[in-house]
């Protein structure tokens, strides 16, 4: 992992002398701000103990009640916030230096997701681990995730897009597994859903006191690495020449940052994006205060910034919605929204640098027409088999003769019913799979990025927010209203992503990065809506966060069918334009394609297809990513061929996932979206691995 690129401007900033007075002033200001926030934080809570009581307590006139609340609830919550903030802030700064990338963080590298999965698995198997071993488990989970993501993105040095994509894919896969555990072990993991977004509510000082030494150890270790990290910013080669063992420094930094993140997850669950936001806040001040980017200043200051982010989120949450809201709405949701905004802002500033995606034409080798027809026919047969199989499997296994009878209206009562209710589910899985695949193919062509998809661009999340908001406001909303709102939300979300990414032209990388930010924000909002309105309704959460065909009826399938009928011809008509768009910006212009118009029209169609699919079966990820890619690999790069093959593959994938979900744990059910994530995410990871830019 060597790098010959010229030192970034950042590297020069690192070499600036430290202005001690200004830096000291900054530390002073940060600490003063933290003290103020902490004071406010202590006055907020569900009990009647307020500022007055606490002041009296300071002067020795307080009540026992106030003292108890302070000691057993407010202080633990405050200290948890401080601990989590410092740990995530330092970890984020460390990871960003490690990856030489301001978009790296415990969230974007999957560390939090890995650590959280480990914690949930332990809880699910009913092992009541004390805090420290639980932290150890979280550490191993986080380490594995970080290792995978860093390996996939060549340590992050190949540019931010790959890093973010690898991180979000791994985080999505791990999130899918976590949800699966929650679903399978519902009783044992009760309450984990809200906790899964990160909450500071603490019952005692136990977790904090157990984890504080771990965090302290991590911070000291990070500090010891600071000088080497400074040198590392000059580039691997320079650092080697200067006598730094690059490899060892990286490994040690990874270990330390994962340790810090895991400690934070153990105390409060995954508090979102703090590790991303905190170092960014510090870097913002760097032009004013020279020397800020020296790691022995950057690391502790990022820690303080982390504390500020966490405390401010919690204070604002309680100030805006009352003390009770702090119990119901996890702090992590607030930080996630803030973090998503910062992610978007960072991505907007991002300049295209270096190759971040597979070179155009990957997998578009010579494929004959005969191959196309063989593949198409084979897939059509597979699709039929998948559809028939889907009708046969489930809690009750049937035989093909039953279907024949059912079709002829001769089946008995039980079979008729089973098939009547299974048919819309099978149909919705097939149609949504096809719709998502077509949308994915279109998005990939237009973005000229094989790693883009409606989910990653935030379209799916936007549609999900629209649909669930409608369901909450109007529980009896018709499917057309639901689809309509979802469609509007999807288009608006996508318009937002598109406009924000537009900076004198559309950079595909920027589009993807901003899409990831928007889709994180959408997930946070969906969680917020569920937690705030119907916290006991796990089924609602499951459908809208993982996608399910449960209880679908034919009318609910209608919008998807309609969308496919109307929009597929539109997209198919533009297949040659898509071929050209997938090449570069210039060729289509030269050939007279109205670039922006075609692009917008294609993306609009993709957004509508996605919205129809989302309102039918909820948020299902990875189909729009995996199907087009596999199609390209099978039949080459022409969209006349990719589109039908991808549609077939998508339909088969979702149908298979749905059949499995209905069968494996019967009579209990697994949402189809979870299984597509479990199938799709490893494929995506493999895809990233295959297309990783080799060390130069």
């Amino acid at each position, binding site marked *: 992992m060597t790098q010959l690129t010229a030192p970034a401007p950042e590297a020069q900033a690192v070499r600036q002398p430290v202005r001690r007075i200004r830096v000291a002033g900054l530390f002073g200001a940060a600490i003063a701000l933290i003290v103020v926030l902490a004071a406010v934080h202590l006055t907020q809570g569900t009990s009647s103990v307020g500022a007055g009581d606490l002041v009296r307590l300071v002067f020795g006139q307080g009540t026992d009640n106030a003292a108890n609340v302070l000691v057993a609830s407010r202080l633990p919550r405050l200290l948890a916030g401080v601990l989590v903030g410092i740990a995530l802030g330092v970890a984020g700064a460390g990871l960003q230096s490690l990856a030489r990338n301001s978009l790296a963080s415990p969230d974007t590298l999957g560390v939090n997701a890995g650590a959280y999965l480990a914690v949930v698995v332990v809880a699910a198997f009913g092992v009541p681990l004390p*805090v420290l071993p639980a932290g150890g488990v979280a550490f191993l989970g986080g380490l594995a995730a970080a290792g995978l993501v860093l390996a996939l993105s060549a340590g992050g040095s190949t540019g931010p897009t790959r890093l973010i994509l690898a991180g979000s894919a791994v985080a999505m896969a791990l999130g899918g597994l976590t949800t699966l555990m929650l679903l399978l072990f519902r009783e044992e993991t009760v309450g984990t859903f809200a906790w899964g977004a990160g909450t500071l509510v603490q019952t005692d000082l136990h977790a904090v006191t157990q984890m504080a030494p771990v965090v302290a150890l991590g911070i000291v270790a990070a500090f010891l690495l600071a000088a080497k990290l400074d040198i590392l910013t000059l580039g691997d080669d320079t650092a080697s020449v200067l006598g730094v063992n690059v490899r060892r420094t990286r490994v040690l930094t990874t270990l330390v940052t994962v340790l810090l993140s895991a400690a934070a997850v153990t105390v409060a669950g995954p508090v979102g994006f703090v590790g991303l936001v905190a170092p960014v806040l510090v870097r913002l001040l760097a032009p004013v205060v020279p020397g800020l980017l020296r790691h022995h200043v950057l690391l502790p200051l990022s820690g303080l910034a982390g504390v500020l982010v966490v405390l401010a989120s919690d204070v604002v949450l309680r100030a805006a919605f009352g003390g009770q809201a702090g119990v119901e709405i996890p702090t992590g949701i607030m930080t996630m929204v803030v973090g998503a905004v910062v992610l978007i802002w960072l991505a907007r500033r991002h300049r295209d640098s270096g190759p971040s995606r597979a070179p155009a034409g990957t997998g578009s080798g010579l494929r004959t027409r005969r191959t196309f027809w063989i593949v198409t026919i084979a897939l059509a047969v597979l699709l039929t088999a998948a559809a028939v199989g889907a009708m046969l499997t489930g809690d009750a296994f049937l035989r093909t003769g039953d279907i024949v009878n059912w079709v002829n209206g001769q089946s008995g009562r039980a079979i008729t019913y089973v098939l009547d209710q299974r048919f819309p589910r099978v149909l919705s899985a097939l149609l949504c799979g096809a719709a998502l695949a077509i949308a994915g193919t279109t998005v990939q062509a237009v973005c000229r990025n094989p790693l883009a998809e409606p989910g990653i661009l935030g379209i799916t999340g936007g549609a999900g927010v629209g649909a669930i908001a409608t369901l909450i406001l109007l529980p009896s909303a018709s499917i057309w209203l639901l689809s309509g709102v979802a469609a509007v939300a999807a288009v608006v979300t996508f318009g937002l992503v598109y406009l924000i990414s537009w900076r004198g032209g559309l950079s595909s990388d920027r589009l993807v990065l901003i899409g990831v930010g928007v889709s994180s924000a959408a997930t946070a909002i969906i969680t917020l809506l569920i937690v705030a309105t119907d916290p006991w309704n796990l089924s609602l959460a499951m459908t809208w966060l993982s996608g399910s065909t449960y209880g679908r009826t034919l009318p609910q399938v209608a919008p998807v069918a309609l969308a496919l009928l109307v929009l597929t011809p539109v997209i198919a008509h533009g297949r040659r334009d898509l071929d050209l768009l997938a090449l570069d910006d210039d060729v289509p212009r030269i050939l007279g394609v109205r670039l922006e118009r075609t692009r917008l029209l294609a993306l609009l169609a993709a957004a509508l297809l996605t919205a129809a699919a989302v309102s039918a079966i909820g948020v299902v990820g990875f189909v729009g990513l995996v199907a087009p890619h596999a199609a390209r690999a099978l039949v080459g790069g022409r969209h006349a061929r990719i589109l039908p093959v991808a549609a077939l593959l998508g339909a088969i994938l979702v149908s298979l996932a749905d059949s499995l979900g209905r069968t494996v744990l019967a009579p209990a059910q697994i949402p189809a979206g979870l299984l597509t994530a479990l199938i799709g995410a490893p494929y995506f990871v493999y895809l990233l691995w295959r297309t990783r830019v080799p060390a130069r």
Partner: protein
Amino acid sequence: MRRTAIALVAAALFGLTACGTSEPTASGNTSNAAAQPVSLTDARNKKIDLKAPAAKVVVLEWGAAESLVSLGVMPVGVADTKGYTNWVTAEKLDPSVKDVGTRGEASVDAIVALNPDLVITTTDEAANNITQLEKAAPVLVIRGSDAAKPIEQMKTNLDLIAQAVGKTEQAKQLTADFDKKVAEGKQRIADAGKAGSGFMMADGWKQGSTITVRMFTNGSLLGALSTDLGLKNGWTGAGDKDYGLAQTDLEGLTKLPDGEFLYIANKNDGGDVFGGDLAGNAIWKNLPFVKAGNVHRLPDGIWMFGGPKSAGQFIDAAVQAVTS
């Protein structure tokens, strides 16, 4: 490539030709023609007509299942039978009762395989799912609970279920027994000089190092029962509009006055937060009712959202706790 494709096609065709049927084709329906038809209106204001009182009933919510058993009808299927066994001890299910999946997403395949005369579910179920179930069997939808009148709602539900299975006499008896039980309990509390004294009813769970407490308001069944027993609910905050449940954290408990703190835990499912995790906690230790030793863990398996039998169990336990 080509060979693979051919092999796949062949395999798929082979799968398709493995024909056969699982049941004989439809013929006339057999029914117990002798019985009286039943007609009733459920919580959706929907009229339900049955040719005869339902005998084979599938129940998707535990409270309704308990009521059904207490009326002398064993359901053929219940959602999450394992959970029922852990949480509802008032009426036991026969081992023959089939598990039809989770309470949130019951398996329609499993339900229809039982060929029920009636499916009972609550208004918590999504309208779509109910529509779909109705294709298989008549569906009686009851309102899970109503925080405006939880006890009446429980009785209404019992009556609806009783009508559907032709057991209205038994329902009258159960209701009368229940009313008697409330009156006796009230008397015993008055005799012990505890009338008008305070109570709190809660359950709770722990995740990570966060403990969440669920408080039962007067709109909850157990809160309303305690009030009817002559006690006064110390939790004055609002709950949800159906089940009358409020959520708080540990420090929220400091708002509570003195009184009897009753709680339900389950050793098979979640353990005992109040008796275990909070033992050394400064807020908990100094709450007035904890200091006074007025914390009572009610016996495991009293279902908080059950029918008259569970309610009776609760009355016994609450009276015992308050007067001891």
